[in-house]
């Protein structure tokens, strides 16, 4: 079973901030505290996979045994530009406009 354990293997506050930065997520101080507690419990539970020695078992990335699905290499029209930009928050002619990098 997947026991709901409350003993924290833990993820530190700095690790939460590091992961959030990698994922480009701004977090408030309050969120950092809340997620630190919740993620610690989740990571503790999913760490269960480390109990198994599976060095002889190959990984599975995909449930079907299919390889190289080819399509005909024929040009087809792309979406009209007005469709491409229909949901854009900001547009400058044929470009998506963003704040300075």
């Amino acid at each position, binding site marked *: *079973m*997947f026991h*709901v354990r409350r003993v924290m293997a833990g*993820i530190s506050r700095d*690790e*939460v901030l590091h*992961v*959030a930065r*990698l*994922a*480009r*997520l*701004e*977090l*408030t101080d309050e*969120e950092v505290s809340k*997620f630190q507690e*919740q*993620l610690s*419990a*989740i*990571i503790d*539970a*999913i*760490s*269960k*996979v*480390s109990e*198994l020695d*599976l060095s002889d*078992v*190959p*990984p*599975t*990335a*995909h*449930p*079907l045994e*299919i390889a190289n*699905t080819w*399509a005909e290499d024929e040009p087809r029209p792309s*979406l009209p530009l007005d*469709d*491409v930009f*229909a*949901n*854009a*928050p*900001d547009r400058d002619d044929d470009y*998506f406009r*963003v*704040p*300075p*990098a």
Partner: protein
Amino acid sequence: MTIDTLRLTAEEAKGLLERREISGAELFAAYAEREDDLHAYLYRCEDPGGDGIPIALKDIISTKGVPTTAGSKILESYVPVFDATVAARCKEHGLRLLGKTNTDEFAMGSSTENSAFGPTHNPWDPTRVPGGSGGGAAAAVSGGLAPWGLGSDTGGSIKQPSALCGNVGLRPTYGTVSRYGAVAFASSLDQIGPVAKNVRDCAYLYSIISGRDENDSTTVDVPAVEVPNAEDLKGLRIGLPKEMNDAEGIEPGVRDAVRKAIELAESLGASVEECSLPLSVDYGLACYYLVAPAEASSNLGRYDGVRYGLRSDGADFREMLMHTRHDGFGDEPKRRIMIGTYALSSGYYDAYYGKAQRVRTVIKREHDAAFEKYDLIVSPTSPTVAFELGAKTADPLAMYLNDLLTIPSCMAGLPGLNIPCGLSEGLPVGLQLVGPQFAENTLFRVAHALEQALAFDVVPERLR
């Protein structure tokens, strides 16, 4: 003509339309005029015209010109400029879109309470959840708001809501239904599938949406779908994985209803035997909650405030990006993005994601071995009946446990079907049938025979 939207099946609706006993407009109106006091829909459509059967689509499925939010604030104002392949196939068959149904944000959840637009209520008891993530479609079908619908299932999001709402839901074999235009959560697990009032409708809808699609290179050709007629189960071999039928946390009422259904299967001629999936259940959840968040953290990278979706203010590009994702994502996507990023990050990859991929191989092998002896395996779909709204929202891990019995087969890409098999505390109990890859016809045949014998009344008691 008065239409009982709570009882009318899609097949019966098709008959009424073909015999011209009702017009397409009258049929559409019968559903459209019903008050949505369950909050099953996020958006209801005007009658698009035509003479086909109406249908509801989960708001994960892109619909041209019709808002598609995935239950997220980050897509609140998004209107697709193209149809998902399944939406296009429904249109080609004349099916008319009633609306877009509620979902946990990005299909992440087991109660539909993670929707940014508020929860859906269970038609059997509105103080309870309809399950999730496809609680909107399941509630619409059982609540008389749609004859049938399409959901999406990553770790149980079709099967579990069908169990909690008392209807029939199929998670098809991975690769049988195109994911093109479905808002991506975890691409090696996501599958679209039908939700219906009975097994024949479920099979018919599956025949409409399945098959290879040049826009999704993971799709394959599918055996011809047989709409089932069989009423006995002679020669059928059923395995009962003990880890799935005796798992800690299965409510006694759920266990009893499932046991009775299995006895019924035996009386219809099936042979039933206990079997074992030693590691699949024990390690399935941990495996899933590594693989799915890892893929989600990658898939949700696309929400950057540039091409579509919400954009928040920021002094520079990076600040805009971080603010957009902070403001646009709810807590559950944030948690999963962070777990996935953590599991994929330098120094942890082998211990978490790499290990989970090997567990996935073990799960697949264990199921393969079971199907050498059995035509299908059977268990409860959900360990519990529908729970109270708010009961599990404060504890993400407790919520994840709802998926204990649906997850293992999802990891192996196997088809799974839920049928209602009885009541516990006045609420529906779901029976899960799982077969080898591409065994949908077997699932339909067996489920149909059981459905006839069980004679479960799919209309919620309080609405009869």
